[in-house]
C-alpha cells in the first residue's frame, strides 16, 4: 500500500503515464477508425490512473507547501544565507532602509538577542499554481464523467429531432415548433448561413429563437443544434436538430478555466524570497526565486547599490569602494 502511494505520488510515474497516453493517442490517429481507442477501457484506465496520480501528487505536496509558505523559517543560519544563489554582505545599510525600499513584499521579522531576522516574500500564490491547475483538470474530468454517465440516462441525448415547417415535436416535457427555415446566400451563390426560426412551447412559456449553425438553442438542460435540412415531396421544408444533454458541461468549462489560471500562476508569478540577518558584526542578505532569477537578482542588486551609495554619500566616502 505504501509502495503504491509512493509510486502514485511520484512525478516520474505521472510523466511516464502521460508518455503512454501520448503513444496510445498517436496510434489512435494513425489509421482510419483508430479513434475507437479513445473509448476503450485501456484508455479510460490510463486517464483514471493519471487523474489519481494528479490528485495524490497535489494532496501530498500541498500541506507541506502551505506550511512552508504560511509559516516560513525566518531565523536562518549564516550558512543558509551564504548558500543562497544571491548572497551579499551589506555595508552601512540598516534593515529598516531595506524594508522601506521593498515594495509589495510580505514581511516577517523576529529578534533573538541582538540579532534581527527578516524575511520578505512576494508571489507566494505562484507556488500554488501547479496545484490549482491539477485541481482544474480534475474538475474538468469530473464534468466529462458526469456528461458520459448522464448521456446514457437521458433518453433525448444524441437523438435527432426532425421537424417540418409549421410542425412541432415533443421533447422532455416541452415542445419545439419550427416556424420558418431560411438559407441566405453570398453574391456568388455560396451559402452564407442557415437560420431556423423555432418556438419553445413549455406550459405558459412561449418563446421564439433563431437557431443558426454557430448558434444553438439551449432549454432545460438540452441543446438543439442545426444538423440537416431538406424539402418534402409536398414542397415543405424540414430541419433536423441534434439534441445534446448539457449535463457536466459547467464542470468542464469551470475546470478548464481553473486549470488555465493555475498554469498562468505557475508560469508567470515567481515566488521571491529575501532573507536578512542583522547582528552587531554584520548584515547579510540572501535571495532566491523559483524562476526568472536573473531579473529578480538585478532588482535586489539595484536596491542594494542604491542604499549603499546613499549610505556612502552620507558618510562622505563617496565612491571610494567603486574606485
Amino acid at each position, binding site marked *: 500500500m505504501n509502495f503504491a502511494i509512493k509510486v502514485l505520488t511520484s512525478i516520474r510515474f505521472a510523466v511516464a503515464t502521460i508518455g503512454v497516453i501520448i503513444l496510445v493517442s498517436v496510434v489512435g490517429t494513425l489509421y482510419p477508425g483508430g479513434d475507437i481507442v479513445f473509448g476503450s477501457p485501456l484508455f479510460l484506465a490510463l486517464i483514471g490512473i493519471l487523474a489519481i496520480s494528479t490528485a495524490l501528487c497535489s494532496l501530498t505536496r500541498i500541506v507541506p507547501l502551505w506550511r512552508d509558505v504560511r509559516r516560513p523559517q525566518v531565523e536562518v543560519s549564516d550558512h543558509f544565507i551564504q548558500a543562497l544563489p544571491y548572497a551579499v554582505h551589506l555595508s552601512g545599510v540598516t534593515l529598516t532602509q531595506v524594508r522601506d525600499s521593498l515594495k509589495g513584499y510580505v514581511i516577517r521579522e523576529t529578534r533573538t538577542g541582538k540579532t534581527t531576522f527578516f524575511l520578505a516574500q512576494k508571489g507566494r500564490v505562484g507556488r500554488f499554481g501547479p496545484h490549482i491547475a491539477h485541481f482544474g483538470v480534475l474538475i474538468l474530468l469530473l464534468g466529462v464523467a458526469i456528461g458520459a454517465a448522464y448521456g446514457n440516462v437521458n433518453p433525448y441525448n444524441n437523438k435527432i429531432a426532425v421537424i417540418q415547417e409549421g410542425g412541432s415535436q415533443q421533447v422532455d416535457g416541452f415542445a419545439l415548433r419550427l416556424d420558418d427555415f431560411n438559407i441566405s446566400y453570398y453574391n456568388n451563390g455560396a*451559402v452564407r448561413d442557415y437560420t431556423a426560426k423555432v418556438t419553445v412551447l413549455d406550459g405558459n412559456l412561449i418563446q421564439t429563437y433563431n437557431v443558426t449553425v454557430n*448558434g444553438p438553442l439551449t432549454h432545460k438542460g438540452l441543446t438543439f443544434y442545426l*444538423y440537416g435540412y431538406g424539402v418534402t415531396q409536398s414542397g415543405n421544408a424540414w430541419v433536423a436538430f441534434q439534441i445534446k444533454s448539457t449535463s457536466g458541461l459547467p464542470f468542464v468549462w469551470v475546470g*478548464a478555466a481553473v486549470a488555465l489560471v493555475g498554469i498562468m500562476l505557475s508560469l508567470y508569478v515567481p515566488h521571491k524570497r529575501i532573507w536578512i540577518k542583522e547582528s552587531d558584526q554584520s548584515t547579510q542578505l540572501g535571495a532566491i526565486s523559483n524562476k526568472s532569477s536573473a531579473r529578480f537578482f538585478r532588482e535586489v542588486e539595484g536596491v542594494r547599490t542604491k542604499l549603499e551609495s546613499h549610505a556612502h554619500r552620507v558618510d562622505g566616502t563617496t565612491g571610494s569602494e567603486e574606485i
Partner: protein
Amino acid sequence: MDTVALEHLGFEIALGTYLISSILFILYFSIKKRRLAEMGFTLALFGFAFQTLALASRWLYAGYPPWVSTYEVMSFFAWAVMGAYVILNVKSDYKSAGVLIAPLAFVLLGFASMQPTNPAPLIPALQSVWIFIHVPIIILAYCAFVIAFVASLLYLFKDKQLTEARMTEGLNRQRDVASKDNTPPSRMPVEAGILANFSLEQLDDLAYKSVAVGFPLLTIGIITGAIWAESAWGSYWSWDPIETWALITWFVFLIYLHAKTQNWSASLAAYIAAFGFISAICTFLGVGYVLPFLQTYISVSTGLHGYAGGGAISGTVLFCGILVAVLLLLLATRKKPPNATRAPPAQTDAESGPTP
C-alpha cells in the same frame, strides 16, 4: 496598383527572399563568414516587410483576417515565425537561428503557394467570432514552439560542440605535455564560432520562456476550440485527429514543464521541446484526415479544421520526415577531425557593421 496585385507581389518577393536568406544561412554554417549571416538577416527582414504588406492587402480586399483558408493560415504562420525571429533579434543577437527559421518560413510559404489563393466567402460553420480568436492564438502558440525548438536544437548543437572541443583540448594538452612543448594550449573554436553569441544557459532560458508563452496560448487555443466545437455541433471534444494531436502537443510540453520544475537535465528538456514542436507541426498539417471525417459527421457545418484541404497527408509525412531528418542530422555523431581545433580564432567572426 490594386490590393490583389500588391498581395501577389509581396508574397512572391517574400518567397524569393526567404529562399535566398535560407541559402545564405546554410552557407554561413558551412563557411562561417559572419557577413553571410548579416546578409541573410537583412534579407529576411526585407521579406518580412513585404509579407506584412501582402497580408495587410489581403485583409483589406478579402474583408476578414488572413487566417481562414489553407493558403492564408500557412502564410500567416510563416509571417508570425519571421516576426518572432525579428523580435528576438531586437535586444539580443540570435541571427544564427535564421539557419532554421528562414528555411521553415520558406517551406511554409512554399506550401501556401501550392494552395488555391482566391478568398472564398466564409461557410456557415466558420462564421463565428471564435475563428478570429482561436486560429491566431493557436498559430502564436506554434510560433512560440518554433522558437523553443530552434533554441533547443541550437542548445544541443552547441552542447555537442563544447563537449567535443573539451575532449580535443584535453587530447592536445596531453600531447603538449608529452612533447614538453611550451606553446599555449590551443583555443577552443566554439567560443568564436557561429554559436558564440549565446551561451547554453541563454538558449535553455530562451526555450523555457518560449514554452512559457506557448503553453498557456495552446491551452487557451484548445479551450476556445472546444467552445467553438460545442456551439457548432454540440460536442466539445470528438477525438478528431487535429484535436488529438493538439492534446498530444499539450502533453509533451506538460512533460517539458515538469522536467523543468524537477530540474531534470537541460539536454533532456531540449529533446522534449524539439519533439513537442514536431508534434505541433503534425497537428498543424495533419488536418488532411479531418475533412472527410467531418463531412460524414455533420451535414451543414463541414469545414472546421479544413484549412489544410484534403491533400495534405503526403505533405505532413514529408514535412515530419524532413524535421526528423534535421533532428537526426544535427544530433548524429558528426565528429570533427581533432586538428580542426588548431585553427586560431577566425578574424572573420568579428562583428561587422550592418550590411548596407
